[in-house]
């Protein structure tokens, strides 16, 4: 990396931080200091009530695999699909339990459990989370996006989108939601991205993006990136972009079988792999619009099935989790150069999102 580009990134980072400081209606938000611990969300297996939040203490180098349970004397519940940190709080979407657990970031203490139930008292099946402007937005498999007020910690709005929404991203006063149709696989998936106006909180339009869209992220220019899973048959998976202001999704070539991905610092870290195809972590430069590397991991560390990837925005370190969907998976912690810093084994079933706890 040359110095110019580094400088450029510094500017960009500063810009990003400023941008995120727009969300200052959330009290207590400040630029994070050095992390004390890693918090690892483990989704668990369906019907198992074995979703866990593990905490790895960076000083003592010990892991508490059932941190949430230890602090709160209760389990997280069944299938915890997503976790975000926003302000001084952490929000966890627990799918089958139909809850959003709101924790105090610093202590892991649960301060509210928000019920996510349909009128028939079944779970709405909350899936993914995004936060902006003092609100947390939740996609749920009952075809809705729910808005939660972060001061009152209550639901204050809901909008209907396409079938079984998954990924969610917020950019330029718009919410982008990937309608997967995953529960309707037998009769055809959905293939749209819902665009929701943030101010009116209503669906503005749907953009056709390809069969079974999954994860959605935005870069600093307002380009929207998404992974489309396809139907595991004749309609293939693809990594796509909708340029700022455009309403068409273009395929970005060279990224086969994209799964979950994350954009940090205008770099997209994309899990790519499938059955009998080795898993890789592709890095795509969202500004230069090119693949930087086909595999971020530079020291030969092999991961059979990558499940999720998270970035520490402060250090740029990467956290990749592995799974076999049945037994507890591992956490691989890489530095910016793609070298393994640490591996934590058997942290929980389907380990997913990783956060740095301050």
């Amino acid at each position, binding site marked *: 990396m040359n110095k110019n580009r580094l400088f450029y990134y510094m500017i960009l980072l500063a810009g990003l931080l400023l941008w995120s400081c727009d969300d200052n209606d959330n009290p207590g938000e400040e630029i994070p200091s050095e992390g004390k611990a890693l918090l690892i969300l483990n989704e668990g297996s369906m019907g198992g*009530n074995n979703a866990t939040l593990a905490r790895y203490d960076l000083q003592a180098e010990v892991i508490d695999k059932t941190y949430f349970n230890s602090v709160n004397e209760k389990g997280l519940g069944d299938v915890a699909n997503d976790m975000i940190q926003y302000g001084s709080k952490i929000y966890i979407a627990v799918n089958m339990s139909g809850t959003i657990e709101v924790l105090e970031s610093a202590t892991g203490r649960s301060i509210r459990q928000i019920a996510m139930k349909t009128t028939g008292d079944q*779970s709405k099946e909350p899936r993914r989370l995004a936060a902006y402007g003092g609100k947390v937005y939740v996609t749920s498999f009952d075809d809705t996006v729910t808005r939660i007020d972060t001061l009152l910690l209550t639901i204050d709005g809901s909008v209907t989108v396409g079938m079984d929404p998954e990924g969610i991203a917020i950019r330029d006063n718009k919410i982008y939601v990937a309608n997967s149709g995953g529960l309707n696989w037998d009769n055809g998936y959905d293939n749209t991205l819902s665009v929701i106006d943030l101010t009116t909180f209503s669906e503005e339009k749907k953009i056709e993006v390809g069969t079974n869209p999954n994860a959605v992220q935005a870069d600093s220019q307002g380009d929207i990136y998404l992974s489309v899973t396809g139907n595991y048959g004749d309609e293939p998976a693809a990594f796509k972009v909708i340029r700022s202001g455009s309403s068409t999704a273009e395929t970005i070539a060279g990224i086969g079988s994209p799964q979950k991905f994350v954009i940090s610092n205008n770099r997209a870290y994309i899990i790519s792999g499938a059955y009998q195809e080795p898993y890789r972590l592709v890095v795509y430069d969202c500004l230069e619009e090119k693949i930087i590397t086909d595999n971020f991991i530079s020291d030969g560390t092999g991961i059979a099935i990558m499940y999720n990837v998270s970035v520490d925005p402060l250090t740029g370190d990467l956290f990749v989790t592995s799974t076999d969907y049945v037994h507890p998976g591992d956490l691989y912690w890489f530095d910016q150069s793609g070298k393994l810093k640490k591996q934590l084994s058997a942290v929980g079933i389907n380990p997913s999102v990783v956060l740095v706890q301050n």
Partner: protein
Amino acid sequence: MRFLIQSVCLLALIACIAPADVAAQSVSDTIGLPEVVVTERFSDREIRSTAPHHILTADQIGQLNALQLSDAVKHLPGVTIRDYGGIGGLKTISVRSLGAHHTAVSYNGIPLADQQTGQIDIGRFSLDNVERLTLHNGEDDRIFRPARTFAAASALEITTAAPRFTGNSRVNGKATLRGGSFGLINPSLLLNGKLSERVSATLSGEWMSSRGDYPYLLRYGPSAGDSTSMERRINGDVNKGRLESSLHARFSDHSRGDLRLYYYHSERGLPGATIYYNTLHDSGQRLWDRSFFLQGHFEHAFSRRWELQAHGKYQRTYLRYLDPSYLGAEGMIEDIFTQQERYGSLSALYRAFNNLSFSASADLISATLHANRKGFVTPTRLTSHTVVAAKWVSERLLATASLLHTQTFESAENGMAGTNRRRLSPYLSASYKPLQGRDLRLRAFYKKSFRLPTFNDLYYPQVGVRNLLPEDAQQFNIGLTLGRSPGTPLKQLTLTADLFHNRVDNKIVAYPTGNLHQWAMINVGRVIINGADLSLESVTSLTEKMMLHAGVNYSWQSALDRTDPQQVNYGHQLPYTPRHSGSAHAALEFRELQFAYALIWSGARFSNGYNDAEYRMKGYADHSLSLQKSFSTRRGTLTLIGEALNLAGRNYEIVRNYPMPGRSYRITLSIHY
């Protein structure tokens, strides 16, 4: 033919090894002729068998405080029942950790098959009118059987009572009314009729209904201090009925036959896992079952040496599953599956010598699965089983050998069919009595068997894989049995102790192929199992009028995953497999009064293949008591039974998040006439 010769050579070899006096010995009449139906005590059969083989008679079952078949089977050594709780919850049986697919369940001589799932819900069967339950590890020593019954690694045999008449009576039977906690109502009726000197018939029917809404303590974590709430099991209601009729004919002194018509119907809720903070989860899922079969058996002895028998069956099952709260576009899931099976078998027995007999049997099974899914493959499997077997019986040596040949022919109406498979399954067993005057026997068996991929394994949309191999199982067993009848007060004592080593290769497991929505079945698993079974039964006459029946069983099993050293669970115990488990029972009989205590006990288990503290499930003990009193009346014998179940009242879990009912009660009133 070659196999036959090999078998003969092998037996000759065994005969040579045995001491000369054994070979020369003439054998007493009771067991002299191989394959003669003898009226021996079942405990004797358990002792003499070359492979572990446990029998529960109707009387013994009556002392176990059992309602469903699964309740009684939990008392057998080496058995693991996966019980999802309540009367309607699924219950499958795995013997010596080989898995439910390797256990055959047969009803009056013919296996019940479910080609779709490969496993039988043994909670479905009531114990009403069951005369005998037998668990065979390896093979039954009786070799004159349909080829199909040689196929599975182990077999659970349900035998219902055949009509018997004393004196001049032409009609007898039994009527029962049972009621209990959580809305249990269970009336049943049995009628036996003697139509002529040679023909008799039975008619039996039963209805069982339960709300199944038992209270349970939901624990929101594994630690003692974790929060709890008192909940009530929802959607656990069951309604089921059984109607059965059979005809038994003795055509001559040399031939007999029977014909049986069976119909079963059930509608039940499917109580799902108890999900934290969402106890209404899956509260609308329902299951409807209908099963009908007609089975027949005919047997003829041509001479003292030759016998022939034929079996036939037609079966139709219907299964409807409904999930009315699915969040997909249609808002529900409805699956309907129907299976049809046609089956025929011919077997011959040849008693070549006094000590040696041979049998051969050929079976053909055709099974088809229909489903309401669009574009469903509608597969048919034609399976041919052929077996040759030999058996040597003398006072001191009992040995059997068999070789089973299996060939499948797969076809499908829409799309590609699975791959045809051919397998040979050998079996060898022997028991030897080393000391003249003592009923001590040493025994050993080896069996190689397999289970075919189920229709789900082969054809389930997006998951099924057409070229799956059968899953292989091998069993080695050595053991000893001891029978004593010292007189008074200990009238009878039987002890069996066995050590076993099993392995499963090419185990069929679901494997993720990219993400949670995309799985495929593959043959990767390997399991190595070592274990021991111990069983002790006794009958003591405490006073002239007071008898004590008591027994204990204990099993130790190490069932380790040996699939892939790279995997985190390599070398760990299989989930839901306790290392230590056991049962005990005692019944005190005093005139017409019986007091019975039964215990089922299990050590700790893990709910995950990775044996971490998080997934550890504590052991449990289930105690039950019953008091029974019989009265002789002019109309027959009246029996009143009161039972108190799971006395400790703990909602222990056999499968994680599926709590068992706490303390409950049952009252049964029946009349034999």
